[in-house]
């Protein structure tokens, strides 16, 4: 497969404008400015690109929700918050190929009619932030940003906004609240950001990886992109793999790649000759797969969905036979308990309750009925809140307890 997102990862100093230009960087802009924004949206629709932030929503379709006559500024927000445990693919893009992101931002902004783009970057990402900041300055200095870009009459400013350490600020409406200077509380929908987003204006929030795919799509055409992947899951995807594999890291795959092929051929297989026990395929928020389920699943939206899980952000966590699933779940539950914004009753209270039960079980003080209670409390959280964080906590709990119930029972008895 042709490398799209990672093509510059091994190029020396690809984060610098000169190196990027030497690799046909910003080439798509000439084509971009010679087309109407509606044609760009069509092109992206045809490419089949879906959001890489986790939800997998078709990107072109989302752009189409911006009102035709917004009558006020439209904003683009770039989601570089990347807080999902196990996910570190946006960081790689930000550090290794920031101009690709900037080029993508220009394309998206042009398509939706935004003159201002806000990059919300995870607070802990200091190095990526400095690199992106330098790249943005270079882009301004060379008129890829600012007024009348390349003399084509399009203006665009990029503001970089650093987060302050809250996972929930990666959720798009919480991200918007945070940029607005408010507490990072997700907002109730409707209204959706495309209608009433940042500062009450129509807004599109896109993930870094989603945007970084755009230069290829515009330069090479939707068909070239759609040729990669499967019928419904088109294009390439970054997988950040961690855990018990020989070569953890960030890899670009064609969607539809068998999971086992990925683990063995990309990630170097399970390390130390151990056996695979479980895989969280798409970031900590998606249901875990047993080794049996993992055997014949493909890394694409549909195949993973058929196994009851999700491609999510592509943050894969591989666990070998040495893993204590109770301990593993406790770590996840601690994380979600720590990160719930606390706004909705079921999530605020449920996250604490789940944590307290897990703490007891893990420390050997589990009680009869605890496992059913874990599942029942999770059910009472799922689908019942302002944002899907509650589901993101409930799904791992339910899947761990259901699929590895014996291990949990042994800990209790």
């Amino acid at each position, binding site marked *: 497969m042709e490398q799209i997102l990672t093509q510059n990862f091994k190029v020396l100093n690809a984060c610098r404008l000169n190196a990027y230009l030497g690799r046909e960087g910003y080439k798509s802009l000439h084509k971009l400015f010679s087309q109407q924004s509606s044609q760009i949206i069509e092109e992206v629709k045809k490419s089949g690109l879906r959001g890489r932030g986790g939800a997998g929503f078709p990107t072109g379709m989302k752009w189409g929700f911006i009102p035709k006559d917004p009558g006020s500024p439209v904003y683009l927000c770039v989601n570089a918050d990347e807080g999902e445990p196990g996910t570190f693919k946006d960081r790689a893009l930000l550090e290794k190929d920031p101009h690709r992101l900037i080029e993508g931002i220009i394309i998206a902004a042009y398509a939706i009619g935004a003159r201002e783009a806000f990059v919300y970057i995870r607070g802990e990402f200091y190095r990526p932030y400095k690199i992106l900041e330098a790249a943005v300055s270079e882009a301004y200095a060379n008129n890829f940003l600012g007024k009348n870009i390349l003399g084509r009459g399009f203006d665009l400013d990029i503001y970089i906004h650093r987060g302050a350490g809250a996972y929930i600020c990666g959720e798009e409406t919480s991200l918007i609240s945070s940029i607005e200077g408010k507490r990072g509380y997700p907002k109730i929908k409707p209204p959706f950001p495309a209608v009433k987003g940042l500062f009450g204006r129509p807004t599109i929030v896109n993930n870094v990886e989603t945007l970084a795919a755009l230069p290829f799509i515009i330069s090479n055409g939707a068909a070239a992109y759609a040729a990669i992947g499967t019928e419904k899951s088109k294009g390439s995807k970054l997988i950040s793999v961690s855990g018990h594999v020989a070569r953890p890291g960030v890899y670009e795959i064609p969607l539809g790649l068998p999971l086992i092929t990925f683990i063995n051929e990309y990630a170097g297989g399970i390390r130390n000759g151990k056996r695979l026990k479980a895989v969280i395929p798409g970031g900590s928020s998606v249901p875990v797969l047993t080794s049996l389920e993992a055997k014949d699943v493909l890394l694409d939206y549909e195949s993973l969905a058929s196994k009851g899980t999700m491609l999510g952000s592509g943050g894969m966590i591989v666990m070998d036979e040495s893993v204590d699933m109770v301990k593993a779940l406790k770590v996840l539950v601690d994380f979600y308990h720590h990160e719930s914004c606390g706004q909705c009753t*079921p999530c605020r209270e*449920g996250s*604490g309750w789940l944590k307290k039960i897990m703490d007891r079980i893990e420390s050997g003080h589990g009680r009869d009925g605890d496992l059913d209670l874990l599942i029942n409390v999770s059910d009472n959280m799922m689908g019942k809140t302002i944002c899907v964080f509650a589901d993101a906590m409930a799904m791992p709990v339910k899947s761990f307890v259901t699929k590895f119930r014996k291990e949990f029972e042994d800990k209790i008895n």
Partner: protein
Amino acid sequence: MPVITIDNKKIEVTAGTTVLKAALENGIYIPHYCWHPLLSISGNCRMCVVEIEGRPKLEVSCNLVAADGMVIKTDTPAVKKMRKSVLEFLLINHPIDCPICDQAGECLLQDYHFKCSGQASRFKEEKVHKSKVVDAGRHIKLDNERCILCTRCVRFCQEVVKEPELTVAIRGDRSFITTAPGKTLDNPYSLNTVDICPVGALTSKDFRFKKRVWFLKSTPSVCPHCSNGCPIWIDHADEIMYRWRPRQEIEKVNGIASSQLTGNTILCDEGRLSYGEWQSDTKISKPLMLEEGEHKEISRAEAVLKLNKILSKDMKEIIAVLSAQISCEEADAFVKFLREKAGTDKIYRSGRAPLNPTSDDIIRKADKNPNISYLEKMGLRELPANIEGDVLFVTDSLSKDDILKTANLKWKSIVQITHDKRLIVPGAEIILPRATFAESEGTFVNFNGVKRKFSPAFKPAGEARTIAGWIPFLEEGITGVMSFLRKQESSDRLI
């Protein structure tokens, strides 16, 4: 206009309204905590969920725009189950200190628990502990363990008062309400947060531990503290007022937890706390007469005889001043008496006029009288300077300026009908005890021409009566025919 169906009831709604509002306005009660008619929609409590035909998930009705043809069910097994689970979640970390909580009896946790759940807790862990008895501001104590984080109080300060004094701090189940750095909850409307707090997390220092709410009777009335004339409930027991609360004027729904729920108004702290002024030790319950520089209590008969002495002789010129604190009914009756029986047309208005009166564009009005509009409409003018006459009639009180205007030694007599010794005009010879607005019934017309009725919360103290009630005695004071007085005295003796 869109037509929706809620629980098989067809309802025509205004376009753009939400299902929750439409339901409440049509007598269908959907339990809710975080939604409040004065505030933006937050959607955090998750209590107001409903089922929508053709949609897979329950949705919160507070944020659900009523669309034509929508079929809503508020009482399905799924809805009931969700309410139960929300209540269970809300209570797991709640201290349940109802026995010592002022909110008990008017608490939405208690009410909904009994109405929608009633199940025992499955939570067997240590509860989260948070700060209690926090001094949030001059009038308010905060208990973070009782707080259900509905953010009504935060939104109230921000959106209604535009003083963002409160905020939520920290995340998750450690979240708590606090004052913003460098601020206290001291805006002029702070006590409304106590009303809108659905639980006992915010309590009024003034009311804390004074009375169990189920011992209180509520009487509809009107705040007399300024010309906005806000509708209030007087909450009282044993002839003592314990607090005033805002009173919503639209119909109540289903009776549960009353005025917290729909369309209620707000009160300013100043007005709300002014109830104390009406029950001070200086309250007058018997007629008084000035003797050797002191006001001595006298009987009603003595008062009438004395009035007769004053009024029947040399009654050349009577000047009367009506205070804008008195009701429309009192003003009408008194003016009629003055014109027809006392033969005077020199009738002026006065009222309470503190230095530097507070006002804003929320509700507080600079005119601190509830009935100024009515007296103006009657054509009464302000007192002219250096007014002179033989007898001065004063109802309620005179403003400081008006006291100066009437300060001369030429009055043969000053007669005043008022309820409090502190309001006695210097030199007043006869003082008749007046029934206050809390002890009588009547009407005030506010700055905007809105008429509001008040009812008696309890009987007047001692021999106090309204101005209208004193007129027969005043008439007999003029005519000298004491038949009404005699009849009254003998019937009083019978009781």
